[in-house]
């Protein structure tokens, strides 16, 4: 078992009312799965992604990640998990605008404590793998949306984490670029990565192996996609 969510609650206080972004979610994800978490906006799927990605902590419930109880870890230990075990791909790319492509890809390696030469070699390798070998010194502003997202994927892969967590990775892209990104994710899945995809788009979700539908903070449906 790679990931196990047990009765997870996430409650935000908004003035007097408490918003249950996650309302008792229980979910297991196995190694090498390709799971899409599907739901409309406000369903709680972003909260889900934040908790799965150790960016946020649940109000209640148990989150076991690779046999470790996440709620017992401190901030720095969570940072190490994010660094070594999870690769993030965001809807808005979240590249640092002042760094060029290869420097962006190097960032997680920097925080992993890798030496400069090792970082550079690995980052170039990753950019080559996503087909941007000829653009390693371009700033994000000099790249198209699809290319930026590919840099982000290269960055997510740099520390070779077992899990790729993609939050609406095609949300800001045109159809063609979106399709290319999905192809890359599928390839990564075939190469042995666990892919968790958060999306509101059924057609995107259907490219995964398993769809977890979420609504009002609850899992309403959990089905295998028949491809």
């Amino acid at each position, binding site marked *: 078992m790679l990931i196990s969510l047990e009765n997870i609650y996430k409650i935000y206080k908004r003035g007097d009312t408490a918003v249950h972004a996650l309302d008792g979610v229980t979910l297991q994800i196995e190694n090498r799965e390709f799971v899409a978490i599907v739901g409309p906006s406000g369903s709680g799927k972003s909260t889900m992604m934040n908790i799965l990605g150790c960016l*946020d902590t649940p109000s209640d419930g148990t989150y076991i990640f690779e046999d470790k109880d996440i709620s017992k870890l401190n901030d*720095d230990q969570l*940072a*190490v998990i994010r660094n070594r075990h999870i690769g993030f791909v965001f809807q808005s790319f979240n590249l640092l605008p002042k760094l060029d492509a290869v420097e962006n890809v190097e960032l997680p390696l920097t*925080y992993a*404590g890798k*030496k400069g030469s090792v970082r550079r070699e690995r980052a170039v390798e990753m950019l080559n793998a996503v087909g941007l070998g000829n653009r390693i010194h371009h700033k994000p502003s000099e790249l198209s949306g699809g290319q930026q997202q590919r840099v982000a994927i290269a*960055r997510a892969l740099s520390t070779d984490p077992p899990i790729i967590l993609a939050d609406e990775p095609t949300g800001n892209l045109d159809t063609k670029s979106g399709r290319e990104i999905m192809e890359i994710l599928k390839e990564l899945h075939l190469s042995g990565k666990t892919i968790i995809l958060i999306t509101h788009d059924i057609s995107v979700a259907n490219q995964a192996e398993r769809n977890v539908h979420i609504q009002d903070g609850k899992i309403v449906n959990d089905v295998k996609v028949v491809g």
Partner: protein
Amino acid sequence: MDTLQTIKIALRGILDNKLRSFLTMLGIIIGVTSVIALVSIGQGATSQVTEQIQSLGSNLLTVNIMGRGANTTLSYKDAMEFAESPYISGVAPVVTGNATVKHANKNSSVQIQGTNADFLTVRNYKLSQGRFITPADVNMRQKVAILGSQIAEDLFGLVNPIGQEVKIGGQIFKVVGILESSSSMMGSNDEEIYIPITVAERLLQSRGVRVLYIQAASKDTVSQATEEISSKLSRMFKTSSDSDFQSYRILDQTEMLDTINQTTGTLTMMLGGIAAISLLVGGIGIMNIMLVSVTERTREIGIRKALGARKRDIMSQFLIESLVISGIGGIIGIIIGVLLSRGIAQLIGINAKTTYSVTAIAFGFSMLVGVFFGIYPANKASSLKPIEALRYE
């Protein structure tokens, strides 16, 4: 993450905002510059005053005799008894008066100082030509004169005065030496003439000594020497040491030096302190900008944290940024401070004295300011929750 990488990231942050970084640095630059300039000039002035006082003669005691009743002076013989003390290395009694000095058709009225051979070393005067009074001159009442440089020039012009004759108060004297020109804040000897004390007593018709210059054997014996002179004079004039009436006064040069040093030292410290306040203000400037920078870069911090930056990674990034700003500011400040103090010193005619300790203290203080005012913003940045920082637009 290694320090070098953190420094690179910090330098990048500074270079991305060149103007802003420079303006922030300016506070530190001005602070360090003013600390260094003010303290350098202050110390320069202090050492100059000290030098001038020391140039009057080292370990010098000046004794003024006021006397008591009809007994207002010391005889030359009595005065020379002080020389027997082991704490005293030289005694130069002085008899002073005015007289007219003539040579050829030139004449002028000058101050005549009658003294002995010790005077030259006790007062730390130098000869430019010839010799000074010898003990034999005093014993034999030789009519020899040593001229101040100005007098020599006035009377003789370009002619070498050594061996020439001058008339002082109607009597003929032979010029045997010329003093080197010396002027300090304590006056000048350029317009004085020195003759043997025994001759001066007769010439000026003044018996007895009112002023004595005494040199203590060393710095450590100054107080013993003072005590000995004091007890002897008290016995002579039969005054008790606790009486208000003073028949003599002993002026200790080292005491004067200490007082002046203390005063100028206090002044220098005060100036440095005022300048240090501007350094503190510069530090507040750093904190202000760092706080703005943290807010501006909240999203960047969020991304870095999502990618695995730990608290201390973000902390050191911002702390090093603030240290680099204050450090570069400090170095620029030192350079400008040294140049400025040199310039001002030249302008007002003293020597600026920039010591390593002042430089080190000013630089250290600027770095300290960088750390102190950088910690709060850096801590604020590093404590941001990754999810909140990522959401920040």
